[in-house]
């Protein structure tokens, strides 16, 4: 029931009482004191009742307490107001009564006190923050005005001339009423629409109650004999009523205080705990954050790519290195399945199987090697490790996949392997030593060469190969040079295990590590004993040959030259004999002399030819720029008479310019053309001199329509003194073509003939175009 006690009921009840009092007062007009007293008596219980209701309400529900207080106050002020008005009317109707006088006076005091309490309430506003608020707020501005008006009206009332004491008291009653009105005003002022509650009204009300109590107490304490009993009772009850109200408020305040204190205590305890907890949590969080940051930094800054996968092999976390290495974007990686990312490079059944086993079997794997071609990063060989990530408090299990790119290492290994295999199977003997010359490696060719086995060599000083002579002198120079970081190259005489010496072409080069520090030496040697011997033999033979050739030519020259002298004597004296004694000798003697002369002449011719032949090699001119056209012309000029004699036709093509011995070329052409004239058929010779390019050569040819020759003899005709005809038919010693061949060979060319008997012959010779010059 108490729950239903509503502020409106209280107000309605009070209004009802007020209305009843008014009616009674109207009825009592003219009848004197009774109605007024009745009102007085009725007001009190109404106020007390309302106060009790408010307290009860407060005990049940502490919310909205301020509202009930306000309702109570409104009712009280209304009643008090009516009482005051009526008192004033009584005084003015001119029936002063001692009782009323006292009553009004005491009431006035009470109401005055209320005004004071209102002022006091105002004072609660007065503190730094409030003052500024009051000064600036319009809402409180008219409160000030109202307060000020109240004081002005009260003062005006009090200074009214001739104002009687009672009127003065009645004036106080008006002022008291105004102060009530002020409280009501304060009531409305303190209503805060935003929160639908009064603010600070409790302070006002507390002050109001305290002062009303004080006023009633003063009244009660100032009781004297002149005062009626009823008056005394009214004020006692009033006093008790205010006391009750005050006590209730005090109690409530105290309880609230105590509650608050307790709450505060609890709160501070809780607060402390919370604080502690917060601290702890903060610390944990900090630790967590730091740990996380630590882990994060490691994960992100680690050079090797990392992946974190869940049980479905879905990618949960990727580090930067992964993106960098495989040129992937987070959008196309995170939340994708492992075998989906990239272009399926990760879709390797063995790899996926290994990763899948990690969670259910709690198996890790390490160093799974995989080579794939990755877009934009090329072929890579990576080593992959997979581990279970232990998360005790979490149900989800994760897989950490780490990888490292070993492409470069792999390539280097391959390269090293290839190199090693090259070194191992090299034909040259290779040995590597450390900087002190201690053997660290030898290849099979080295053991073959030296006769020392691996175990003889490895770990030993490399000076075992040095022959005594080298150990005595040269090796130090070599050693110093390679120690200085230079490459040494040269021929040395080394010693085999058997003690046998061998010639080696040796290269010793220093090996530097990546820090440019001397790591050792590599020596490559090649057994050149045989090569050297062969080379020496070759050069010795070439020398011998040259010497022999020179001697031969010199011999041929000198021989033919010196042979001429006695021959000349033979032939000359034979001729002289014939000349002087032809008539004195018989026919036989003359014939013998003729044979002797003829033989001597032939011998003379042979010697001359031989001399000419030998001069091709020994008396050649230096090669110089030679116009072959002019050469042919000169040859033709020299043969002019012969050509005219046999009525020959000679045609020539355009000839190149080249570097050659001009005199010899003239002789060459001359001999060939002369041959063509000499071996003519019955008809007039037709000779064609031609030249064509063939690969790197010029090929010259002299073609005739003469007797030709059997191809069987094609080679023989170029040999000195080889003839196909006897000297009776066609004169000559058979030197011409031999000289041609020698001239052509001196020019590094070839000479040959194409012919058939009675079908003419084509003599051709080639000269290298290297000797050609641009005209």
């Amino acid at each position, binding site marked *: 029931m108490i729950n239903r006690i509503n502020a409106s009921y209280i107000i309605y009840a009070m209004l009802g009482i007020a209305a009843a009092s008014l009616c009674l007062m109207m009825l009592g007009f003219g009848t004197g004191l009774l109605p007024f007293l009745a009102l007085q008596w009725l007001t009190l219980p109404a106020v007390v009742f309302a106060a009790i209701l408010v307290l009860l309400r407060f005990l049940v529900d502490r919310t909205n307490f301020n509202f009930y207080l306000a309702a109570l106050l409104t009712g009280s002020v209304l009643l008090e107001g009516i009482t005051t008005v009526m008192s004033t009317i009584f005084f003015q109707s001119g029936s002063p009564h001692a009782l009323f006088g006292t009553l009004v006076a005491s009431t006035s005091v009470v109401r005055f006190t209320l005004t004071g309490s209102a002022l006091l309430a105002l004072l609660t506003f007065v503190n730094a923050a409030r003052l500024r608020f009051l000064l600036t707020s319009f809402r409180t501005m008219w409160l000030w005005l109202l307060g000020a008006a109240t004081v002005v009206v009260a003062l005006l009332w009090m200074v009214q001339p001739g104002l009687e004491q009672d009127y003065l008291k009645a004036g106080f009653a008006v002022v008291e009423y105004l102060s009530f009105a002020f409280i009501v005003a304060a009531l409305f002022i303190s209503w805060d629409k935003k929160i639908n509650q009064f603010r600070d009204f409790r302070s006002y009300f507390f002050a109001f109650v305290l002062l009303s109590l004080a006023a009633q107490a003063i009244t009660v304490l100032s009781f004297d004999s002149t005062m009626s009993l009823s008056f005394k009772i009214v004020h006692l009850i009033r006093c008790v009523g205010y006391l009750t109200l005050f006590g209730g408020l005090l109690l409530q305040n105290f309880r609230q205080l105590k509650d608050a204190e307790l709450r505060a205590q609890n709160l501070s305890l809780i607060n402390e705990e919370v604080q502690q907890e917060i601290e702890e949590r903060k610390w944990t969080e900090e630790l967590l954050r730091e740990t996380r940051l630590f882990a994060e930094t490691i994960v992100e800054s680690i050079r090797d790519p990392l992946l974190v996968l869940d049980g479905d092999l879905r990618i949960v976390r990727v580090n930067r290195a992964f993106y960098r290495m495989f040129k992937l974007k987070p959008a196309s990686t995170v939340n994708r399945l492992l075998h989906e990312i990239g272009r399926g490079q990760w879709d390797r059944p063995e790899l996926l199987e290994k990763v899948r086993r990690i969670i259910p079997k709690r198996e890790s794997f390490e160093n799974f090697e995989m080579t794939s071609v990755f877009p934009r990063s090329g072929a890579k060989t990576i080593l992959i490790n997979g581990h279970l990530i232990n998360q005790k408090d979490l149900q989800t299990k994760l897989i950490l996949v780490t990888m490292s790119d070993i492409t470069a290492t792999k390539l280097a290994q391959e390269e090293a392997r290839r190199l090693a295999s090259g070194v191992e199977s090299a034909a040259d003997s290779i040995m590597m030593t450390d900087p002190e010359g201690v053997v660290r490696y030898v290849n099979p060719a080295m053991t073959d060469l030296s006769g020392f086995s691996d175990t003889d060599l490895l770990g030993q000083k490399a000076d075992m190969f040095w022959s005594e002579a080298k150990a005595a002198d040269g090796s130090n120079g070599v050693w110093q040079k390679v120690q200085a970081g230079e490459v040494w190259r040269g021929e040395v005489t080394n010693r085999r295990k058997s003690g046998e010496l061998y010639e080696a072409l040796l290269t010793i080069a220093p090996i530097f590590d990546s820090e440019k520090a001397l790591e050792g030496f590599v020596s490559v040697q090649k057994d050149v004993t045989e090569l050297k011997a062969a080379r020496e033999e070759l050069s010795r033979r070439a020398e011998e040959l040259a010497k022999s050739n020179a001697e031969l030519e010199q011999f041929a020259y000198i021989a033919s030259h010196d042979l*001429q002298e006695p021959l*000349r004597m033979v032939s*000359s*004296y034979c001729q*002289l004999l014939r000349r002087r004694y032809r008539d004195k000798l018989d026919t036989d003697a003359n014939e013998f002399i003729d044979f002797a002369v003829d033989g001597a002449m032939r011998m003379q011719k042979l010697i001359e030819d031989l001399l000419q032949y030998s001069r091709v090699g020994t008396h050649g001119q230096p090669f110089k720029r030679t116009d072959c056209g002019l050469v042919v012309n000169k040859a033709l000029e020299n043969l002019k008479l012969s050509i005219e004699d046999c009525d020959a036709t000679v045609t020539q093509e355009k000839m190149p310019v080249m570097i050659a011995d001009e005199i010899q070329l003239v002789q060459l052409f001359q001999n060939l053309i002369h041959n063509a004239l000499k071996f003519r058929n019955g008809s007039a010779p037709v000779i064609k001199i031609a030249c064509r390019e063939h690969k790197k050569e010029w090929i010259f040819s002299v073609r005739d329509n003469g007797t030709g020759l059997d191809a069987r003899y094609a080679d023989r005709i170029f040999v000195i003194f080889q003839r196909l005809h006897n000297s009776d038919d066609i004169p000559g010693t058979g030197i011409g073509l031999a000289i041609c061949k020698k001239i052509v060979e001196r020019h590094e060319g070839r000479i040959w003939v194409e012919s058939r008997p009675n079908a003419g012959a084509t003599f051709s010779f080639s000269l290298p175009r290297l000797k050609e010059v641009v005209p």
Partner: protein
Amino acid sequence: MRKQRSRPVEILLVEDNPGDIRLTREALREGKLHSHLNVVSDGAQALSYLRMWQPFTDAIRPDVILMDLNLPRKNGHELLQEIKQDADLRAIPVVVLTTSNAEKDISQAYAAHANCYIRKPVDFGQFMDVIRMIERFWFTIVLLPSE
């Protein structure tokens, strides 16, 4: 035409080969000119002869010198050089008559002021012709300084 000489033409032949000496002598004998052939067999002797040193104190200054190049002791080239450097002897015409047809010999002889260079023909007939031509050229066509 030139005046008829009162004395035989003096020819100095410098030649070591007796066969050649004889051939030359024979050739000159067949010639029309009355000549006197004096023979020395080497360069040193030739110089002694020309300078009338021992044993050639009564030697007659030759009108022309025929010389081979291939000589013992002092060879033809040296002899030629000394003759042509000697102011007294250089006026005597020197005919080089040799078997060599080496370019080097020819150019060297002319460089040393040889008056002509003739290769000894192998054929005797031709040799005869050459000697006759020398005779004719130097003693009938060419005018030589008088003594």
